[in-house]
């Protein structure tokens, strides 16, 4: 069975104008819309409190919007929640592991609830335990599992019935860097080899950048921009060049020297730090160094940074990502 067909292309998830208000007049979603093509890894990227989990709860039929529409795998989440539930796997932000059961029992029960049984279920459970590195701990009660193990079991539970669409709400938050990297590999494999559509939320910019084919940047309950990470970054005006000077520069010599270069824009000098933008950092750097040498200025270090999703967020949300993230806490 294919995902729902909307127009000519196959769309796995469609959210239209979702609005959700919590008591105390908290507007968690304020007209949020996006769509996810089938078979891709799609990222909802946003700072804490942006409305990512609320969106996931609505799309997975746990919660209902005040207004707006959504469909998943071709079924309307409000009118056919039961059909949607059969098509999706859900890994919530908060672990859903039953602490009093073993890993194997958790997975088996999860499969039973979807109507699996017998050897099919038994083999599927064994396969997932091996795939997620839980084979040795399979028959231990999960209250003895580490955070990373619980997270892997959560994901295995979301996959037991072979869903068409997988929701991962901040799957790597709070995990060690190595565990996180291993999980990224696994998520990529799932999308590539099993043809799953994955909706992943994250507040790690580098995670969205590394994993997602497309992202929607969410801020204050709305999608501020949507597109492929490369495309979004390319829309920004060029690379950032940073030069660290050997000594603080006071008399405007540096500024004058660089302003003459046509390659550069937005030149600012602040003590020993010099910043500028250029369409191509690689081509601008030799010219910058030559100009500084001519002006007799000593350089300590030079860095060129491609525009990051951080810059994209700043551009569209009008504030720095780290600030927004802290503000919410």
């Amino acid at each position: 069975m294919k995902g729902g067909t909307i127009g000519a292309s196959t769309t796995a998830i469609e959210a239209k104008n979702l609005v959700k208000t919590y008591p105390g007049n908290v507007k968690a979603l304020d007209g949020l819309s996006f769509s996810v093509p089938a078979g891709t890894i799609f990222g909802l990227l946003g700072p804490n409190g942006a409305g990512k989990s609320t969106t996931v709860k609505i799309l997975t039929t746990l919660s209902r919007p005040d207004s707006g529409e959504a469909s998943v795998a071709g079924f309307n989440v409000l009118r056919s929640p039961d059909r949607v539930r059969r098509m999706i796997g859900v890994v919530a932000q908060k672990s859903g592991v039953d602490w009093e059961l073993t890993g194997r029992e958790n997975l088996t029960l999860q499969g039973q609830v979807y109507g699996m049984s017998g050897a099919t279920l038994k083999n599927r459970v064994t396969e997932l335990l091996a795939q997620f590195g839980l084979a040795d701990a399979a028959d231990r009660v999960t209250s003895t599992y580490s955070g990373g193990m619980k997270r892997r079991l959560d994901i295995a539970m979301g996959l037991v019935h072979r869903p068409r669409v997988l929701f991962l709400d901040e799957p790597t938050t709070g995990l060690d860097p190595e565990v996180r990297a291993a999980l990224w590999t696994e998520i990529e494999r799932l999308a590539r080899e099993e043809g799953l559509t994955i909706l992943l939320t994250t507040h790690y910019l580098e995670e969205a950048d590394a994993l997602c084919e497309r992202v929607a940047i969410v801020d204050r309950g709305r999608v501020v921009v949507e597109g492929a990470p490369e495309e979004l970054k390319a829309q920004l005006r060029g690379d950032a060049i940073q030069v660290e000077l050997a000594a603080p520069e006071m008399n405007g010599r540096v500024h004058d020297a660089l302003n003459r270069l046509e390659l550069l824009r937005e030149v600012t000098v602040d003590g020993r730090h010099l910043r500028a933008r250029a369409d191509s950092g690689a081509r601008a750097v030799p010219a910058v160094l030559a100009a500084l040498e001519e002006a007799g200025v000593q350089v300590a270090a030079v860095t060129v940074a491609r525009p990051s999703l951080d810059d994209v967020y700043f551009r569209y949300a009008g504030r720095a990502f780290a600030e927004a993230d802290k503000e919410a806490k």
Partner: protein
Amino acid sequence: MLAIQHSWYMTMRHLRALARQPWYIAFSLLQPIIYLLLFGQLFKRVVELPGFSTTSYIAFLTPGIVIMSALFGGGWSGMSIIVDLDRGVLDRFLVTPVNRGALITGRILQLAVVTIVQAAIIFGLGLILGARFSGGVLGAVILVLLAILLAAPFGALSSAMALMARKEESVIGAVNFLLLPLSFLSTVFMDQSLMPGWIRTVARLNPANWAVQAGREALSANPDWAFILVRGGLLLALTIVCGWLATRAFRSYQASI
């Protein structure tokens, strides 16, 4: 059909958890056993009061404590919903096609098992303390059934309350507020004929009292079966109503998140 199958899966889930912490049953027996020993001694001679219907207080008290412990078991069972909520287990199930009723039935069936074990232990202790019953094994079995039929609606009600309040403190408050009055405004400790009129009236509407009176009747020499059946039937009806209410409470929970 699906409901029955899912209920079975959920019952197994809860029974597994119970088997891994059997001390839970021992802990829950503490209060009933203290009551049985303490009140059994303290009120030993109330049977001498004119109008008290039996001559052995321990034989009077034992079925009362069996029912009281079932009432408490049911009342507190909503706490396990709070644990499932806090651990994200409930949210995980609610986005699967699991039958909502099964999420309640599974708990109730586990509660039934707990009630049987508790009732057997309390009843055995009563026998050790000298209680004797003319009703025999059949009477004892009916008493246990009545205990289950009392634990079930209160278990469902407690679960419904937990789903609506979603906070441990609220459930503890409500349960404490309900359970002691229900125990004392009944014939658990005192014969009906010696109660003040208003308590007798309240007791008539108290499901815990239906279970106690029917249980004592079943243990008597010549049980009035109609009396027992009516009360058993009322408790069954109450179970169905409360079970329905608890299943509906999932909607109220989902509307709040």
